[in-house]
């Protein structure tokens, strides 16, 4: 985390890219069904050629939607270490065909879901989740509150990264090299305080 710029909420969501492509305009339920279907095919086929095809297809779709292939490739970088480890393990344990299948299908599933997330703004995604959760009404759960919890969580992540960064800077300013525990205790106290203020804001805005 030291050298990485502060990750933000929208980094987590693969950055929604505004646009007017068919995929942007496609209703969420259809997009979700397509993506889910493609993921199921990839995961059940267990064949590296199918996975490679799906991967190529998502790359083409990303380019067609104006997401840019370069951005699309960059979004895969965090997976690099995992990919290397998995490839090495399966090459040794199960041979090249299985290794290619496992790695390619992982990449295909990840990029397919990314595709969905980059072409759908967060509020629509949450609306979709709320709709998906509506059967829970029967169990006495308000699906709107699930949606609210998800957006609250997403919005809190960059704030928490900011807290860790500023505490580390504060320690550095006093030329102390902070021990992880020393760093985490004030961070957790600040987190609870932040949760309290968030709860207050929710109540004040009549959202309880």
């Amino acid at each position: 985390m030291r050298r990485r710029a502060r990750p933000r909420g929208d980094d987590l969501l693969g950055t929604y890219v505004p646009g007017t492509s068919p995929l942007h305009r496609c209703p969420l339920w259809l997009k979700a069904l397509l993506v889910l279907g493609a993921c199921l095919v990839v995961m059940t086929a267990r064949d590296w050629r199918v996975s490679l095809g799906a991967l190529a297809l998502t790359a083409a779709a990303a380019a067609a939607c104006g997401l840019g292939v370069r951005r699309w490739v960059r979004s895969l970088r965090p997976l690099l270490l995992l990919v290397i480890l998995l490839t090495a393990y399966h090459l040794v344990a199960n041979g090249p065909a299985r290794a290619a299948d496992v790695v390619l299908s992982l990449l295909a599933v990840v990029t397919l879901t990314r595709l969905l997330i980059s072409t759908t703004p967060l509020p629509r995604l949450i609306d979709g989740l709320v709709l998906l959760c509506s059967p829970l009404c029967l169990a006495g759960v308000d699906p709107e509150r699930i949606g609210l919890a998800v957006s609250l969580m997403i919005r809190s992540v960059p704030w928490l990264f900011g807290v860790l960064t500023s505490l580390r800077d504060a320690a550095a300013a006093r030329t102390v090299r902070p021990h992880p525990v020393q760093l985490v205790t004030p961070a957790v106290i600040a987190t609870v305080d932040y949760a309290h203020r968030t709860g207050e804001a929710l109540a004040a805005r009549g959202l309880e």
Partner: protein
Amino acid sequence: MTSPARETRSLTSFDLANIAVFAALTCVLALAPAIPVGAVGVPITLQTLAVFLTGMILGGWRGFLALLLYVVVGLLGVPVFAGFVGGPAVLAGPSAGYLLSFPFAAALVGALAHRSVRGERVRRRDGATSVAPERRGGLTVKLIGAGLAGLVLSHVVGTAGLMINAGLGLGAAVVTDLAFVPGDIVKVVVAALIAVAVHRAFPRMAGAVL
């Protein structure tokens, strides 16, 4: 705070905020860079620290919901799991068992931990409402106990996951699992120390003060 919002729903806006913020804390700790442990070479992340902390601070029910929120958001495809992965594909991975055990581990840790915190408080009704300094050691030990219970639960489910998803035999799965145990014990202790500090700073966290 006496929360008037309690009039209609069982979860107040304060509960909801705590659940969402602790789910976010779990993301942040899971995404913080992994510390590779020299001899074993297993990358140890702070993800499980977040599980223990959330339970000890929020208690059973809210802790369960916070980790459930985290896992569900991750499975939906947001890359919040350790190593920036996410999506339903994780369910097929070797760590699926650990991941699925998190909400239940947090619930177990939380239920035991909050019972201890309230117990310490009842013993001191003479004015002081928070845990008294001379009792902190005792509370830390109890919280460590609660954390270890959660650790056992998480590792049993995790080992089962290793056997099912990675196709390991019982022996191999247990050996693999044991590599993570020392790190997790350290995290239980760290979580307990932090949680005691938090309960002192926020005496209302474990329910209404007498």
